[in-house]
């Protein structure tokens, strides 16, 4: 057996064979130049402090581009290198993409928050332009002409007057001896000259992905490795009281059992603890684990019961909370409105959600000579370095994390608890250990998207428009995994569709109430936007119907005239993006709303009995999305989704076809949230276990046709992986109302009765 392909041990550019190769690193850039104009603490700022990409050109003309972000299905391994190739004027067919290990010199590698293109677009352009600059200089020197007479022409430099031409490979050695230019010297290509950006390219990995050759974490193999399956404490924070492993050890192939210490609160990314069964194949490890006889001390979270907890959240949502945004005087308007206008109130509820990526948590790690090497399907290899070094008491530099393909991530694989498990076990066992979670482990020991209760109240004036709007959300915050006392939403997650409600209402108050976590809470594709947009966009639809208005026209009125939202008096991190470059622009939200309505034939389509259209619009990850969903509900209450239309303004789009694919996928993901997404706990133990009781949308339940329309834009690039989910959830529920007259205020749909 050989070490898995596609990763090198510590080498950044293993393919660079010849000594005359030109190797460029963004690290050469003076950081002060890069940091100019950027506020502290943005993702981009982090990227520039610790430059992020390496470009290499070999003397045979092969261009190596390092992908430092994780590939979990967004084709980021294609799209970011494509930006480098664009500015280099490189021939994509001669580009080889190599996956980076975890290393702070790349800058931020946490492939989360839909910001890879946004944060690294300019970084990659400059890296490519630097290479092109040096190649042109080298050619000009060789021809003894001014560089201004030379230009690049797809993997070559040409001299305009004489037509002389030298390939990049021929120039690599000479260019490598030249000084790296300053950023000011670089000339980026004008938009009109782009050959790749905006046109896109199929996935660099397409063949491997269609032939079973792509190496995921599940597929990592090294000589001498053993397999581990871990029985975790069923309740968060539980401990092993006693363990009888006699029967487990009798299973053929089982080698030993190993206890893993419980975590010290807060859990963060520490192993959960429990007992591992080590075997010489995965199946034997699974079988042995079933024979373990463990008595648990469940600890205080045994009191956690989802039914009771829901009542607590909803009661809290009806109490005054912490004010996170306040305009006008909501209370006065409610008092006045009570005398003439109409007051509308509604409660919305979204349960815990599990990620259920197709590849469960899995990793291979080897502890040897005081160092750890991991082959991990991780969204965040630097977090792997952090937690593994902490768990084993070694330095971060002694943790090498190779990033394999990820069989889905959706935020779960930003949290490397499973990698730490393998490292801890390898040290104890003295061999490379592959930890394989079952689907049951994945569902029961997730970092769940928070359960949330939202209380909404508005008063409508005589025109049916709200003169005052109060919204209050209550959910156990993600920060609870890092701080046992955290109960309020942090600004980042309140800023996901809550603080930044883009409505034109004179009296507006946004609040948040406290909730204690009893399970690990985490990020899931679009995170707090899921429940916040569900409440805001459903309530908007309710108000439209209450006012007897068309939901589209009503929504546009709520959004109001084109303007930039003034959020100066709030704590609004804007997804880490600078607000001047990425403001909340209601004009852009209006535009996608009008665009999707037109494309979907809103108000013009003839629909049959039991059919309906719903609409929702939402900005998240600095991208504007509006969605129209068509549903058919039959007399048994079964919902079919014949068509979804989605309009997207994500600014400049690098790879349009694969961007559309992200929004098609988001429509399916949102469908799963609405239809069946629900995790519950009884006495602290998660009730669900596999796809039979945590169903996700299958082909016959997914939208039949999703049409995605991208707004042509020269605005800076924004997110595309997550923003499709929130409006899909709300638009689907609004469509169900249009079709049935039944308002879905509590997810999932399986909790609602659509007929009778």
């Amino acid at each position, binding site marked *: 057996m050989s070490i898995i392909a596609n990763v090198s041990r510590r080498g950044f550019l293993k393919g660079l064979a010849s000594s005359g190769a030109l190797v460029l690193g963004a690290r050469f850039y003076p950081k002060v130049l890069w940091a100019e104009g950027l506020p502290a603490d943005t993702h981009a700022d982090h990227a520039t402090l610790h430059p992020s990409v390496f470009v290499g050109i070999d003397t045979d003309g092969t261009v190596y581009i390092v992908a430092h972000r994780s590939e979990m299905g967004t084709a980021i391994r294609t799209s970011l290198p494509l930006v480098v190739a664009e500015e280099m004027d490189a021939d994509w067919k001669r580009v080889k993409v190599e996956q980076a290990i975890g290393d702070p010199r790349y800058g931020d590698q946490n492939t989360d928050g839909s910001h890879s293109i946004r944060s690294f677009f300019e970084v990659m352009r400059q890296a490519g332009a630097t290479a092109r600059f040096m190649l042109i200089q080298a050619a000009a020197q060789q021809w003894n002409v001014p560089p201004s007479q030379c230009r690049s022409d797809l993997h070559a430099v040409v001299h305009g007057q004489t037509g002389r031409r030298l390939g990049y490979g021929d120039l690599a050695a000479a260019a490598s001896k030249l000084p790296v230019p300053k950023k000011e010297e670089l000339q980026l290509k004008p938009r009109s000259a782009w050959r790749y950006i905006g046109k896109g390219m199929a996935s660099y990995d397409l063949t491997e992905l*269609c*032939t079973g050759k792509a190496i995921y974490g599940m597929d990592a193999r090294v000589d001498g490795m053993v397999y581990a399956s871990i029985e975790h404490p069923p309740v968060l924070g539980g401990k092993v009281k006693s363990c009888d492993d006699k029967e487990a050890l009798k299973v053929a192939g089982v080698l030993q059992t190993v206890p893993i210490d419980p975590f010290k609160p807060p859990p963060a990314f520490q192993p959960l603890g429990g007992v591992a069964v080590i075997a010489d194949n*995965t199946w034997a490890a699974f079988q042995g684990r079933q024979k373990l006889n463990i008595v648990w001390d469940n600890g205080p979270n045994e009191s956690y019961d989802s039914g009771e907890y829901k009542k607590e959240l909803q009661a809290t949502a009806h109490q005054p909370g912490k004010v996170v945004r306040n305009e006008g005087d909501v209370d006065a308007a409610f008092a006045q409105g009570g005398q003439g206008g109409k007051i509308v109130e509604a409660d919305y509820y979204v349960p815990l959600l599990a990620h259920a990526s197709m*590849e*469960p948590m899995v990793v291979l790690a080897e502890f040897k000579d005081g160092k750890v090497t991991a082959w991990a399907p991780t969204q965040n290899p630097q977090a792997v370095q952090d937690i593994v070094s902490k768990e084993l008491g070694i330095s971060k530099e002694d943790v090498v994390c190779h990033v394999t393909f990820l069989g889905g991530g959706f935020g779960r694989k930003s949290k490397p608890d499973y990698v730490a498990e393998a490292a801890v076990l390898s040290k104890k066992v003295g061999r490379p250990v592959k930890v394989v979670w079952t*689907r049951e482990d994945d569902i029961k020991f997730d970092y769940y998207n928070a359960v949330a209760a939202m209380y909404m109240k508005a008063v409508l004036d005589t025109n049916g428009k709200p003169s005052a709007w109060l919204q209050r959300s209550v959910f156990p915050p993600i920060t609870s995994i890092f701080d046992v006392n955290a109960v309020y939403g942090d600004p980042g997650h309140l800023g996901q569709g809550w603080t930044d409600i883009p409505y034109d209402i004179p009296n507006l108050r946004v609040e948040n109430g406290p909730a204690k976590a009893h399970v690990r809470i985490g990020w899931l594709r679009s995170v707090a936007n899921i429940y916040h947009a569900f409440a805001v966009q459903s309530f908007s639809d309710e108000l439209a119907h209450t006012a007897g208005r068309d939901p589209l026209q009503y929504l546009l009125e709520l959004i109001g005239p084109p303007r930039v939202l003034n959020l100066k008096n709030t704590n609004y991190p804007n997804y880490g993006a600078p607000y001047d470059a990425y403001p909340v622009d209601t004009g852009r939200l209006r535009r996608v709303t009008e665009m999707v309505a037109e494309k979907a034939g809103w108000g013009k389509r003839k629909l049959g009995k039991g059919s309906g259209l719903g609409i929702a619009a939402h900005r998240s990850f600095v991208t504007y999305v509006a969605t129209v969903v068509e549903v058919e509900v039959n007399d048994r209450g079964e919902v079919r989704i014949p068509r979804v239309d989605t309009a997207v303004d994500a600014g400049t789009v690098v790879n349009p076809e694969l961007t559309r694919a992200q929004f098609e996928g988001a429509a399916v993901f949102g469908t799963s949230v609405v239809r069946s997404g629900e995790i519950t706990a009884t006495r602290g133990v998660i009730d669900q276990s596999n*796809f039979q009781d945590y169903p996700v949308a*299958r082909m016959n339940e997914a939208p039949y046709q999703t049409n995605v329309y991208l707004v042509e834009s020269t605005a800076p690039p924004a997110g595309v992986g997550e923003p499709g989910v929130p409006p899909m959830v709300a638009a689907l529920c609004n469509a169900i109302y249009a079709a049935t007259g039944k308002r879905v205020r509590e997810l999932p749909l399986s909790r609602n009765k659509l007929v009778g």
Partner: protein
Amino acid sequence: MIQLKVNGAERSFDGDPEMPVLWYLRDILGLTGTKFGCGLALCGACTVLQNGEAIRSCVVPVRDVAGKEITTIEGLSPNGLHPVQRAWMQQNVPQCGYCQSGQIMQAVALLKSKPKPTDQDIDDAMSGNICRCGTYQRIRAAIKAAAEAKA
């Protein structure tokens, strides 16, 4: 000793006959193109062909495939790409790609029994295969394109 054929090659296995074919393929033979997703035949990531029919290899013990011929994604078209794989590439189907070996094997079995499948045929055959990235629309288009190409 269990005798069987995997991707055209004769194999014999003297391990636990209850071991599912999935783990035999992956851990013993090193054929990792076939994926583990649920262990209960609920998701289809482990789909392989047994004498040309799609099976969920995560719940079929090796003893049950004695004397049979198993085809995995690695053996689908040893020399180049199968028409279904070509269609998958043309339609840019995969996102994360983890489920796609199973999807492709299921589609190959479908097209063998129904060379011109209707939407209902596709729903019926493919709804046992979960794709969490949500590539169903492109899977459907790829199956139709492959059916066209073969015609």
